[in-house]
């Protein structure tokens, strides 16, 4: 008699004294006063709410109903309160700390260490690093990512301050815009990301050079410049974080974006928690990527902007790649 749950995924947590308590209070109202009543009916009343029937429906038992709505036969959505707890009590604050913390660390790093400058003067000679197609792809995916991040974060945090700042009616329009942007651009981002993964995977296979690169901390502090090929260890790490976490974000996003398959609430709850957690992680990581690509490293942005980098930059950051290019030039 327990409902057929083939479409659902069980959340990994269980037992909700909290919900039971709330429901007992809400539906049955409080009969506490009767506990003291010394009447023959006392025992009968005490038997209330603790029967097999109550037990079954509070565990999510389904019955028959005329309503055509999805899962209408289920009287109590057992996991809802738990989803609320995880989203509101964990994902929401943890995400805020993760994003704020990452920004703070980057700021402190910038203030203490400053920009990674070019060691010697520019040669004026440039080499091609990114083709037009690569650059178009990068900036398309990046733009979509930023729109998705801003709209997603607005859905998660907007109500805490934007509603008051904008006023209820403007906030309503803004939130609608965010949701539309998120739900329609999301699938585009999925396509862009997949293309990027396929196109750039070959640059991002880890090798021995990357191990040394990591052991030397990527040369972020001090004067050392560990060797690197076309991509260095850090860039490869970002590629794989974006690939793996990005796929999780995309998959969970698609589950939420297409309710037309009649997903159960439990599936949606789980997708939301995975999507929220993973996307916050990705946004925090992207802060690091954006910092290193702009303020953090002199000359890095040029490559993705114009497609060409100065030889000095190439030698300093990607010596093995520079040597290869020079060799093939000859």
């Amino acid at each position, binding site marked *: 008699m327990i409902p057929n749950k083939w479409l659902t995924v069980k959340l990994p947590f269980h037992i909700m004294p909290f919900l039971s308590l*709330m429901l007992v209070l809400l539906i049955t109202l409080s009969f506490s006063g009767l506990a003291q009543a010394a009447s023959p*009916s006392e025992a009968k009343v005490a038997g209330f709410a603790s*029967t*097999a029937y109550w037990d079954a429906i509070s565990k999510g038992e389904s019955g*028959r109903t005329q309503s055509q*709505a999805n899962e209408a036969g289920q009287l109590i959505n057992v996991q809802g309160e738990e989803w609320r707890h995880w989203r509101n009590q964990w994902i929401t604050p943890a995400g805020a700390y993760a994003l704020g913390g990452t920004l703070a660390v980057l700021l402190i790093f910038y203030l203490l260490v400053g920009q990674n400058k070019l060691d010697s003067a520019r040669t004026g000679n440039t080499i091609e690093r990114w083709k037009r197609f690569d650059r178009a792809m990068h900036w398309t995916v990046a733009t979509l990512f930023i729109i998705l991040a801003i709209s997603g974060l607005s859905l998660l945090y907007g109500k805490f301050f934007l509603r008051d700042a904008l006023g209820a009616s403007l906030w309503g329009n803004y939130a609608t815009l965010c949701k539309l942007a998120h739900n329609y651009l999301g699938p585009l981002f999925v396509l862009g990301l997949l293309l990027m993964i396929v196109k750039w995977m070959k640059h991002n296979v880890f090798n021995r050079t990357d191990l040394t690169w990591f052991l030397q901390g990527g040369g972020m502090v001090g004067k050392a410049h560990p060797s690197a090929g076309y991509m260095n260890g850090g860039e490869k790490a970002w590629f794989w974080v974006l690939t793996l976490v990005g796929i999780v974000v995309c998959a969970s996003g698609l589950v939420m974006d297409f309710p037309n398959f009649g997903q159960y609430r439990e599936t949606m709850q789980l997708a*939301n928690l995975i999507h929220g957690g993973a996307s916050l992680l990705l946004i925090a990581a992207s802060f690091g990527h954006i910092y290193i690509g702009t303020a953090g490293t002199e000359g890095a942005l040029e490559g993705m902007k114009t497609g060409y980098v100065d030889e000095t930059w190439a030698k300093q950051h990607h010596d093995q790649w520079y040597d290869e290019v020079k060799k093939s030039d000859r």
Partner: protein
Amino acid sequence: MARMKFLCDSKRCIECNGCVTACKNENEVEWGIQRRRVVTINDGDPGETSISVACMHCSDAPCMAVCPTDVFYQTEDGIVLHNKDGCIGCGYCLFACPFGAPQFPSDAAFGERGKMDKCTFCAGGPEEDNSPEEKAKYGSNRIAEGKLPLCAEMCSTKALLAGDASEVSDIFRERVIYRGHNDGAWAQNQAEPQPEADLAYDVTQPKV
């Protein structure tokens, strides 16, 4: 101050769906949406039990806590209402609601659900009481006229009760005690069948 609640006495509910029809008609609810539903457990088997359920107007409402746009508000009578203008149709309220109360006119691709609709305790919405706008978006506002929700008013067996929590519980408590009703609203005790303690309210039983 009143604290509005619904209560459904499962010993009395006969699954006639009168409440469902009354609600649909009174509020002229959109096609495809049913604010109230009757669920029958063990349908056709011994111990068959029906409950009418809609939004229960939770005190610490989960829908309110998860809504990304914060469109919910609670009236001073504890009725949970929402402003459809700000609703983006994300479905979060439905994911969180213990009773599956929030409903959507659609479930199309790209999360196009339309604006959420749910039981208003016949108390309308944020628009001016009983204005055409309020009527169109939320249905009737009987509370503003000093009346209770129509579903409960129409219930043929008076299984569904609506009103101030303490009044509702008084009525129900009285039923439980004086009807000799063994398990209250929520059960039929299989172990201890009491055929005489059925729908009838035994008025001859002295009130001690």
